[in-house]
């Protein structure tokens, strides 16, 4: 059926993921031609490991963005949860499962506090989360005095390798814990958002909260779920970050807000809600990762990287919006908007 095929093509052409994939392939090809070390398995695995924390948190942020909100406080949440867990582990000496659960609980509590401010007090999400960010981060700095915790227990800092192989070139490739956690989180988020009713309701709420309410979605529950989920994932990301660097530094995660937000937005999540896919967000992170890594391998100054990020955000968001606007003009009712 050529007609069906062409309509499928047309649908795909409007998906930001496709454009992103195209850009990634082009950039990847250029880098692998210019920098010989770029397209090697160790380098790719290394990249995955480096960007795992950002990816984990971006998954949570994506859920909030789909619900039509925004959260700026996740980096502060991650720091607070990480530090609380580190205190419990290093000072009180609690066992691993208790510490991890406590850390996740702190994240969930902070996320639910955001949700309460937004849902019950009707504070705009960006304002509520900016305030929460300044409150929780400042209190963390005040009570911790900015002191890092270096003596994390061994179970936290020792590297966990799930799969290890030696290549013919002698390089060792390790699939480590952060990569596995990232994959699990991405899979879970994808399942929730596409296969569970709460995920579909979140899309509906992001598209039109009033309509979603009238078809029976409980907006309050959805709000608490979205921000709570982000809180939990931020806490998880925070603890994985401490696992990677082997210490807990109270301000290590600060100022990553805008980078993670850029990655989610690059992947097609809309700030107005209701749009976005897990693969898209992952592709957004991949694009930022290979840009940074490729430029590094090419020997371009790391100072230059921020300029590239800025240009990438401007160009990609403009293209996405303009192409979807053109698409909307041609689209008549027969086609449902695609969320995959």
């Amino acid at each position: 059926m050529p007609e069906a095929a062409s309509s499928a093509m047309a649908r795909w052409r409007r998906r930001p993921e496709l454009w992103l994939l195209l850009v990634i392939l082009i950039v990847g090809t250029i880098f692998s031609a210019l920098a010989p070390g770029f397209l090697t398995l160790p380098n790719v695995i290394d990249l995955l490991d480096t960007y795992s924390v950002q990816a984990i948190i971006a998954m949570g942020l994506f859920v909030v963005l789909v619900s039509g909100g925004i959260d700026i406080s996740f980096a502060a949440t991650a720091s607070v949860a990480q530090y609380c867990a580190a205190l419990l582990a290093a000072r009180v000496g609690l066992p691993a499962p208790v510490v991890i659960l406590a850390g996740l609980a702190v994240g969930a509590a902070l996320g639910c506090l955001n949700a309460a401010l937004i849902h019950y007090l009707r504070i705009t999400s960006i304002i509520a989360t900016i305030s929460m960010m300044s409150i929780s981060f400042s209190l963390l700095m005040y009570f911790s005095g900015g002191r890092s915790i270096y003596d994390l227990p061994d179970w936290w800092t020792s590297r966990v390798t799930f799969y290890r192989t030696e290549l013919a070139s002698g390089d060792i490739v390790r699939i480590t814990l952060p990569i596995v956690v990232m994959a699990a989180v991405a899979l879970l988020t994808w399942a929730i958002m596409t296969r569970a009713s709460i995920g579909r309701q979140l899309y509906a709420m992001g598209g039109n909260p009033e309509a979603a309410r009238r078809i029976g979605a409980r907006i309050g529950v959805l709000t608490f779920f979205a921000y709570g989920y982000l809180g939990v994932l931020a806490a998880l990301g925070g603890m994985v970050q401490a696992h990677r660097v082997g210490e807990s530094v109270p301000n290590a995660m600060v100022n990553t807000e805008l980078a993670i937000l850029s990655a989610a937005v690059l992947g097609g999540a809309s700030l107005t809600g209701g749009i976005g896919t897990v693969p898209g967000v992952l592709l957004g992170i991949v694009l930022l990762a290979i840009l940074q890594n490729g430029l590094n391998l090419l020997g371009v100054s790391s100072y230059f990287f921020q300029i590239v990020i800025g240009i990438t955000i401007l160009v990609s968001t403009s293209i996405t919006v303009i192409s979807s606007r053109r698409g909307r003009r041609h689209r008549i009712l027969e086609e449902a908007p695609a969320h995959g």
Partner: protein
Amino acid sequence: MADPTPTDGGGLLRFFRGAPGGHLGLLALLAALLLLFSALVPGFLSQGTLNSFMYQLPLLGLLSLAMVVPLLTGGLNLAIIATTNQCALLMVWIMRSLIAPDASGAAVLGVIALALVAGLLLCLVIGLLTGVLVAYTGVHPILVTLGTKSLIDGISIYLTRGMALSGVPDALSSTLNASILGVPLIFLLLVVAAVLLGIILKHTPFGIACAMIGSNIEATRYSAIDTRRVLVGVYTLSSVTCFLAALVVLGTFNSASADYAQSYLLVTILAAVLGGVDPFGGFGTVSGLMIALAILQVISSGLNQFGLSNYLTVAIWGGTLIGVVVAQTAWAAFGPRWRRK
């Protein structure tokens, strides 16, 4: 949502009404804080406190003004601090590279004038580009300005390698640090900028168009207002305010760097919302913002003299905002019933 008094004839009436009328609650909070701190901190109501107040407020104040203009249209300019720093860097760079050590007074003045013009032009260009991107692509302003912030910061950091540039000539720095009748010049700069912006936003067609765009951009477009041109104007005005902030940076730090004042970015939004600016756009006044800034600064000075850490100040700022918004929501929900009785 954040409209504090939606009952008295909606926002339109409030918008046209006199300045301090809608801010009774904020003024009461300010008075209460002043009383509290003067009771708790000996010597709080002194000339020294007033002086530090007038020296510390202008930078945050001008940056908040730069943020309020886009906020009023329902947008946001995340690039204000990046713009300010780049403008300050450019001005310092011009002055330190063009002024010879043995230059005559007239030559120095000429170079300073050149630097000021260059800084203003840079801000104009940044503002125009941002405005064009926001207005003509239809991308959400948060994203556009996130991109421009990253780009501008990147360029500044790339060119300076993250170092601070010093070398503001004495003529300029002593002018910027001068005071007239005991009032610092930079504080006067803030006052003048606030009054001007207040007049522009309240009493010119441009200002009315800004508020209308913030309320409903489609309706504004159908009312024969060129919304795109207004939006370009909004971001240009915001950037030009950053030029004034850059002057304050030069006066206060006597140098320029890509990472000065970065922590103020979210505080400016906080101050604006505390002052009754609706984050969705449409409503807000400069006078409200000024009262909010005074509240934040009083909290900060008071806690400082109390001997508390800076971190706690920021936490209390956040708490104040949430408290005020909660009070506004409660007032909107229960206030009318009390008043009618």
